[in-house]
Structures are given as structure tokens and as C-alpha cells.
């Protein structure tokens, strides 16, 4: 599984690192970013949860 954050859509709310700190972090530009690729299998569920919860639908999941 791969995750991607669209920085143009991200509203810097910080929710995705809260939900899935294994995959997401806030960058220096205050936008969320993916810090691990591919998503570790043990983090896939929370990564999907983060994508589901993203208030601006900025996270795309690509299932492998």
C-alpha cells in the first residue's frame, strides 16, 4: 500500500499524524507528508483510517 498527501489540498490540521503517526508527519511547510513508503503492513489499517478521516480528503491510498 502507498499513501500520498496532496499538499495543495491539505489544510494542515494535523489529524493524520494523530491517527497514524507511523505513516504521516507534519513537514516544515506545515503540510502533512508521508514519511514511509510503502506503508508498513501493520500500519495499513490506521493509514486507511487517516485517509477516511482527513477533513479535506487530501490523502490518497493506492492499494498494492
Amino acid at each position, binding site marked *: 500500500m502507498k499513501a500520498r498527501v496532496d499538499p495543495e*489540498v491539505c489544510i494542515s490540521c494535523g489529524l493524520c499524524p494523530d491517527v497514524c503517526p507511523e505513516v504521516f508527519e507534519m513537514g516544515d511547510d506545515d503540510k502533512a507528508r508521508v514519511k514511509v513508503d510503502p506503508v508498513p503492513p501493520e500500519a495499513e489499517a490506521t493509514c486507511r483510517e487517516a485517509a477516511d*478521516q482527513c477533513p479535506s480528503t487530501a490523502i490518497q491510498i493506492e492499494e498494492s
Partner: protein
Amino acid sequence: MNRRAFLKTGAAAAALGTLTVARTAHAAGSDVLRIGLVGCGGRGSGAAANALDADPNSRLVAMADAFADRLQGSLASLKGRYGERAAVDPERCFTGFDAYQKLLASGVDVVILATTPHFRPIQLRACVEAGKHVFCEKPVAVDPPGVRSVLATCELAAKKNLNVVSGLCWRYDPGVRETIQRVLDGAIGDIVAIQETYNTGTVWHHGRKPEWTEMEYQMRNWYYFTWLSGDHNVEQHVHSLDKAAWAMRDEPPLRAWGLGGRQVRTEPKFGDIYDHHAVVYEYAGGARVYSYCRQMAGCSSDTSDVFLGTKGRADILNRRIDGPTPWRYAGPKPDMYHVEHQALFAAIRAGKAINNGLYMARSTMLAILGRMATYSGQTIAWQDALDSQRALAPDRYAMDGTPPTLPDGEGRYPVAMPGVGKVL
């Protein structure tokens, strides 16, 4: 169990709970604050994590959800992250529609309310009657009777010195707070217009299993049913409207009118909500809030708040003001989801009470008013909307109960038609 009975039994269970609570005991800051989570979906689980992070001497001791699988998934995740601090005993894991009542009677001090929005007024009332501090996710209702209930409950919370902290999280973001405070202090002059935009892609759907009743199907796919979510302009766009309301000093508009419909998300599985709303809120003095929200794939996305004043403009999420005295926020940028819980627990420890009741109820009502305008095609006065007796509720709260909307022979749910349906 009908809505009235639900409330009544909730109150009864809550009354028992008051006997177990001694709020002032927490002021010393040394004893454990026991957290109960009601609604174990993604946001609820996230809020529980925020709460555990906010106060090192807190523990998650009880969980409640309509569905056991949701609860167990949340519990496993939180235990994995917080170990013993989230090791909820099986006898304190409650499922079903009445799970929150059992949780309130299980010895919790603080309750996180994160179920689908429909249940918020009932559950908030039960929490406050039971003497619990509450973190209350947004929105706080789906209909005007629910909003009025929340307003009354929050008055009761104030009398009981209980905390009610809202999940309208931008109010706890330091940069947004400072930007809006500067607007309120006159940095852009008088507000002429506000543009609120919440245009995103599409959201989750959990499908349908043959063994599910219609009630279970709707509960599991609550986002797509107005009686459960309020529609997306209420469930999500309330964040935007809350910022506009904040800038308008939480005074309500005179009236609203709008356009909306289902243009792309038309399959039966998408229930009865719209996929776009555009609403104009008219305020005394002439200011207007132009509000747009859309959930469609493949379209441009934009989530922004632009305030236009007589002397300049403010871009809230970019925390900047342009005009005669340009300004950019350069302060700390903590996670607002943490900040709101830190505020809650600090208040409890200090024996103080935060009460976000008025704005969380009014901002929710602002969103409901917008939905009433788009669904009806009518111009609707704030007060008429707030006074409406029209409640969105099933015949009873049970998995074999009858939801307030049902599919036809082709699986299609009735959808509000502007110019035809009544909303008041």
C-alpha cells in the same frame, strides 16, 4: 425504545452515575481521571488518544459503541499505543444503542462523545445529568429540536460547573485564534462578506451485508443519511461555518437561502444527502456569508475561509491579514486536537469549567439552517428554523427499528426536492 424513552432511561442511568462522582477531588492533579469513550470510530479513537496524551494521569476505562466490531478494533488500536492506560476491562465495553447509559454508570469522570451526530443531544444531556465532564464532537445535532436540547443542556452544565469542550477544533488553534481575534479587533475594518468553502473529494462507504437490517445498514453508513449525519454541509462544513460565526461574534444571521442537490453522487447507496450546497446567510447590518461545500471526485478542492472587510482581507487557514497593516502569524503551531483536550483536562484539574455550548449549538444550527434552505428552496429565517419542531428520528432505537427514511423497490431513498418538500 423511542426517542423520548431513550432520553428518559438515559436520564435514569445518569442519575445513578452522579453518586459516583466527586469532581472537586481532581483539582489536586494527583488522582486518575477516568475517561469513557462513546463512539469508537476513527474520530472517537483519535479523540481518546488526544485525551490520553493531554493528561498523563488519565486512563481510558470504558468504551461504548453501537457495534462490537468497531469497539474492539478501536480498543486493540488504543491498547497497542497506550498499553495499560487503555486496557479497558471487558465488563466495561458496552455495545448497542443503550451502551452510553451503561458507560455513564460505570464510574467514568470524563466522557468523549463521538458517535454519529444524531445521538449527540441525547447523550450530552445524559452526561451532564450524570455530572460528567464532556468532550463533545461536532456537529452537536442534526435538527432544531436537537440544537435546543443542547442549548438547554449546556445551561445545566454551567450551573453544575461541568466542562463541555467542543470538537470545533479551530477555536483551539493558536494561529487561527489570533487571526480571528485581530479581525474582531478591527484589522480588516468592518466585515462586509465572508466566503466559506469546503470543496473536497468523496468519503468512505462501508457497503451492505445481507445479514444487516436496514437500521444497521444506515447506522454503518451514517454519513449518507440526513437523520444521522445532518448531511455533509452539517457534518463537515460546520467547521467552516463556525469560523464565520466566530467572526460574526456568534450572532446568528437573519435568514438564509441557497441552492443544492445531488448531481454526481446519485446511486442509491448514497442515501438521501446532497453532494453540493451553496448558501447565502444574510446578517443584520448587511454583511453576508457565502458558503459553499461540495463532495465530488475529480473536481478542484478548496477548504478556505476568506473574510472581506472595509479595510482589508483575512485568510484564516493561512493565518494572514492583508490590507493597510499586513500581518502573518509567526507563533507556535501546536496540534489543535491536542490543545482542545489539554484545555479540557487542565480545567478539570483546576476545578474550572469551560463551556463551549453556545457557539457549538449556534454553529450547528447555522449549518442546519443552510440545509433547510437548500432542501426547501425557500428563504428561511433563523428564528423560524430554530423554533422548528421537525425532528429527524426513527420510531425506536433498535437494530430492527424503522429508520425515518426507507428505500423504495429499487433501493432509492427519497431525496429532498427544492420547491416541493417542507422543512419547517
